[in-house]
């Protein structure tokens, strides 16, 4: 059976070039980077090299990169760290209603500890504005945390504008850029970003490794303590093969970022254009233009997302959905609900996320299969009256 993987926002394929870079660090070069001997120093040099690669991808200084287990840990570290360290200055945090749960649940945890959190609403495209952030700012605001691009609907937030505002107001600005790194050009200096979370497996790197960028001068206490690794900012023996893989993956992703993005956008736009021509009564979720180059998200009215995914999967197509049945709760995606979708329409969402390996043949196959799936499920649906 033909197989088409369109769930690259969930995770991506580790590319062989990255794996080859990692392999020696699992067998031959196994020293602990903290050890002063030859074995250790070989590993330490590899970690330094990777730190350089990650830093230059976002125009940061290597000393500003802290390696950790991934995006969730980076979000937790940044938000809880700032809250703890700067609580004397204030206890107010600004975020949005459409953040990843790694941010939202961390904020909810802080609310229980006496912090106040403003969850900015979004427009129908899942977008917030810098004006909204400005209006929500108070004297006791210590942190603004807003995602670079939304993982479900692909909407790209006005990060540079928000960064500028936060810098002017002297409020720390963290962005969860897990979906953006390796896909969009990022310059933490030009964009006035103070902290940024990233995860290697979203850009063809290995799972279990990520990083938090923290601008010089900002103190983020360690979430994991028990060792002096990462200059006391994250304890635990470094995941050397992972770090090496992340460095190589980010270098490759950013080397011809624009060409890859353009290639994906052509295919993304073909899907966005053709789906409504082949399936009546669908709704594009997310911003029409300010959108990740690899994200397509449609609600197919009158049918439910998990059954769409299941039937796509039986035809070899891997996608994802914001339906409750795939989230493990009774409510559909908080992102889609925040954008004003009804529960019914939110349940029928399908997300397809491309990568630079996706071919036009793959897209044509989806355009052949998806209308059949929609028709079959609508035929079964008590909500649909043709």
């Amino acid at each position, binding site marked *: 059976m033909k197989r088409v993987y369109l769930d690259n926002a969930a995770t991506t394929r580790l590319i062989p070039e990255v794996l080859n870079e990692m392999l020696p660090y699992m067998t031959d070069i196994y020293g602990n980077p903290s050890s002063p001997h030859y074995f250790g120093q070989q590993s330490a040099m590899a970690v330094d090299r990777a730190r350089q690669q990650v830093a230059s991808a976002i125009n940061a200084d290597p000393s500003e990169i802290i390696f950790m287990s991934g995006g969730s840990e980076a979000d937790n570290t940044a938000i809880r760290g700032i809250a703890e360290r700067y609580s004397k200055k204030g206890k107010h945090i600004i975020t949005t209603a459409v953040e990843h749960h790694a941010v939202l649940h961390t904020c909810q945890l802080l609310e229980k500890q006496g912090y106040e959190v403003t969850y900015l609403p979004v427009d129908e495209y899942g977008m917030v504005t810098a004006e909204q952030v400005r209006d929500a700012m108070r004297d006791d605001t210590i942190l603004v945390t807003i995602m670079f691009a939304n993982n479900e609907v692909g909407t790209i937030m006005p990060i540079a504008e928000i960064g500028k505002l936060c810098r002017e107001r002297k409020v720390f600005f963290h962005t969860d850029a897990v979906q953006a790194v390796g896909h969009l050009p990022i310059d933490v200096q030009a964009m006035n970003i103070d902290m940024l979370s990233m995860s290697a497996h979203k850009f063809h790197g290995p799972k279990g490794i990520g990083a938090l960028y923290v601008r010089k001068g900002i103190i983020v206490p360690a979430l994991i303590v028990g060792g002096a690794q990462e200059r006391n900012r994250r304890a635990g023996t470094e995941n050397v093969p992972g770090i090496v893989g992340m460095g190589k993956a980010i270098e490759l992703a950013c080397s011809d970022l624009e060409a890859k993005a353009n290639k994906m956008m052509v295919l993304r736009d073909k899907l966005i254009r053709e789906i409504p021509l082949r399936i009546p009564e669908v709704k594009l979720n997310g911003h029409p233009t300010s959108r990740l180059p690899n994200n397509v998200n449609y609600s197919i009215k009158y049918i439910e997302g998990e*059954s769409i995914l299941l039937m796509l999967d039986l035809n070899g197509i891997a996608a994802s959905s914001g339906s409750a049945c795939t989230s493990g709760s009774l409510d559909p995606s908080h992102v889609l609900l925040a954008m004003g979708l009804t529960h019914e329409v939110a349940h029928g969402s399908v997300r397809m996320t491309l990568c630079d390996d996706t071919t036009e043949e793959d897209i044509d196959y989806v355009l052949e299969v998806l209308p059949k799936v929609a028709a079959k499920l609508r035929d079964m649906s008590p909500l649909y009256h043709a």
Partner: protein
Amino acid sequence: MYTEKVLDHFQNPRNQGEIENYNGMGMVGNAKCGDIMQMFIRVNDEGIIEDVGFKTFGCGAAIATSSMATEMIKGKSIDDALKLSNEAVVEALEGLPPVKIHCSVLAEEAVKAAVDDYHKRMEEKSDNK
């Protein structure tokens, strides 16, 4: 996550769609929760369910449990149909993931709603005589 039996009923649903001349119809669930099941039955004078059909908006498990429930009550008396339990539907499907058990409950409720509707229609009919 799903058994082969569930996938079979999902891909090849039995008794799908509205049936002709039905005399009992039940609809349970709601779009907000992501599951709606509609069950149609045609009961003959002997109280036997001659034909049954379903329409479902929902996940794979919701579709499979609807399909299985229709198979289990077809040709049975309405009294037997009322005895259909969600556990029996789950068992016939060779299991469901824990988070999907509510789908089987919905299937049981849909059958009961259809039989209730049938009884109501019969009462109205006799009242009109």
